[in-house]
């Protein structure tokens, strides 16, 4: 008995140290200079907690634990080595795995404890399982859409929100019945199955551009379900890790919804479907003249500039143009041009995605500025070069109250002396909204593939140096 007590204290001590390391890990992550130390702290905490758990005296068999740890590692390593463009779907997949773990443990705990489950425990257990299952299928769907194995177009049908909320409501009612009568074991599968269906239905109406918000929200759900599991197992470490993850996801979701000018309740109820407005006005604008330019002309203007701001969007990543953009950055910097990047919070497919893609292309992170930082600089900028971004540069968001994106914070590229937009054609952006930026007097359209066009500009700049 004595031996067990010592061992228990030791386990608790590893959990306590792990908790401290987890919080330090997130503190150190706040800036690039200390961030890698944060990862190290997290890893150390994790190893300690797992080692401590393996000492648990209640564990009688290690065979399956060992097999599962090895299998998990074998699956985890390739998931840690995906390309940077695939990070959003990898992240969605990891939310699914986290939620799967929580749901399975919750399910097993229920059947092991039933019928004598105390009310409060049954309540958090139900929350754990409901959040876990809907996050599991929801994240799988999100990953599928991001990986493009599922159609990316939003699929909507009449009464969608009614059906979805109705389903969730039924699950909650059954959960409440279980809290009142935990001996009704036959009810339990329903609070797993219904949220599994809800998770699928929740993501069906969501299109690619809304993914940053959705991933953040699923992140938050995954964290909260893990915290609920901590309540069930009475594990303070798990409660804290879940609360940290939940808080992180919530902050990111709020950031993303603000950046898209959606109310947070709009996001919470999964009403991400695109409004069909705006598309109607598109036909009338076709006759307007636009000014276009060649790579040679663009290079000449860039070479004469002293301040350039590049605004990348998801289109840049799709065209795999980031390495060409880096060559352009080098060429201009060598000429003494001050080049910065203006990054909108929802650029890319998840929060911060654009920064990772540009950092991978070796662009120094102190040149990557977020919207609030760069907007003050844009009026003093000679050239704003927009690559693969559309709606986040649309001045209608500032000026046209009838625009569907009115009120959305944008990058004020139209305030730069010259705006250059690299674009395949005049087709409207993801949201189907006309962009008046393209018709401004100070705007030059550079028609073509982002990667090729930037490459041509770089060659022109190099050619000019040769003469």
């Amino acid at each position, binding site marked *: 008995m004595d031996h067990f007590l010592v061992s228990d204290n030791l386990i608790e001590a590893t959990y306590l140290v*792990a908790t401290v390391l987890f919080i330090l890990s*997130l*503190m150190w*992550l*706040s800036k*690039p200079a200390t*961030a*890698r130390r944060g*990862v190290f702290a997290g890893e150390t905490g*994790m190893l300690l*907690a*797992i080692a401590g*758990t*393996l000492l648990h005296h*209640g564990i009688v*068999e*290690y065979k*399956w*634990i060992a097999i*599962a740890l090895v299998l*998990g590692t074998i*699956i*985890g390593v390739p*998931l*840690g080595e995906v390309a940077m463009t695939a990070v959003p779907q990898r*992240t969605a997949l*990891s939310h699914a*795995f*986290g939620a799967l*773990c*929580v749901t*399975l*443990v919750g399910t*097993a705990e229920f*059947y*092991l404890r039933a019928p004598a489950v105390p009310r*409060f*425990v049954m309540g958090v257990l139900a929350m754990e399982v409901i959040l876990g299952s809907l996050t599991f299928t929801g994240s799988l769907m999100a990953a599928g859409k991001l990986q493009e194995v599922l159609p990316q177009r939003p699929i909507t049908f009449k009464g969608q929100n009614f059906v979805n909320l109705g389903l969730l409501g039924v699950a909650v009612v059954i959960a409440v019945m279980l809290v009142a009568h935990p001996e009704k074991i036959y009810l339990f599968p329903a609070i797993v199955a219904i949220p599994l269906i809800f998770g699928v239905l929740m993501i069906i109406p969501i299109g690619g551009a809304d993914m940053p918000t959705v*991933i953040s929200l699923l992140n938050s759900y*995954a*964290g909260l379900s*893990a915290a609920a599991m901590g309540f069930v197992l009475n594990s303070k470490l*798990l409660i804290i*890790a879940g*609360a*940290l*993850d939940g*808080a*992180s*996801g919530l902050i*990111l979701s709020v*950031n993303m919804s603000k950046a898209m000018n959606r109310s947070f309740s709009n996001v919470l109820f999964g009403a991400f479907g695109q409004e069909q407005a705006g598309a109607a006005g598109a036909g009338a604008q076709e006759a307007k003249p636009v000014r276009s330019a060649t790579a040679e002309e663009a290079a000449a203007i860039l070479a004469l500039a002293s301040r350039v701001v590049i605004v990348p969007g998801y289109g840049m990543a799709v065209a795999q143009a980031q390495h060409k953009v880096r060559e352009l950055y080098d060429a201009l910097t060598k000429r003494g041009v001050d080049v910065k990047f203006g990054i909108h919070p929802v650029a890319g497919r998840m929060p*911060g995605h654009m*920064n*990772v893609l540009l*950092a991978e292309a070796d662009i*120094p*992170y102190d040149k*990557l500025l*977020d919207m609030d930082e760069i907007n003050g600089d844009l009026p003093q900028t000679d050239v704003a070069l927009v690559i693969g971004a559309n709606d986040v540069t649309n001045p209608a968001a500032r000026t046209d109250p009838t625009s569907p994106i009115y009120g959305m914070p944008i990058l004020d590229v139209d305030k730069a002396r010259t705006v250059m937009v690299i674009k395949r054609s005049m087709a409207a952006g993801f949201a189907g909204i006309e962009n008046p930026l393209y018709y401004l007097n100070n705007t030059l359209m550079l028609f073509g593939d982002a990667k090729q066009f930037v490459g041509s500009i770089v060659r022109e700049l190099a050619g000019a140096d040769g003469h």
Partner: protein
Amino acid sequence: MQMDLLTSLYVFMLAAFIGFEVIRRVSPLLHTPLMSLTNALDAIAVVGAIILTGEYHATHPLLAKILGTIAIVAATSNIVGGFLITDRMLKMFKPSGPKK
């Protein structure tokens, strides 16, 4: 039991506040690594799965073993993959060189 739950609620509440304060300070530059790191930390749920799988259960022993084993696999892949990719991403973030 009630006391435990009450303590748990306090712990959750305090951790949520710490979470908000700490994570608010994370630069938007690093929001992608932030998500992959919190995801790896969240996989500490593996602790619960390990105990579930390894303990002796008088009832539903097979169910506990199967679900527990799958849960460990899922969580471990998040731990390994999450830390690996976070570190890979962070390695890429470099400041402007002294050349300039």
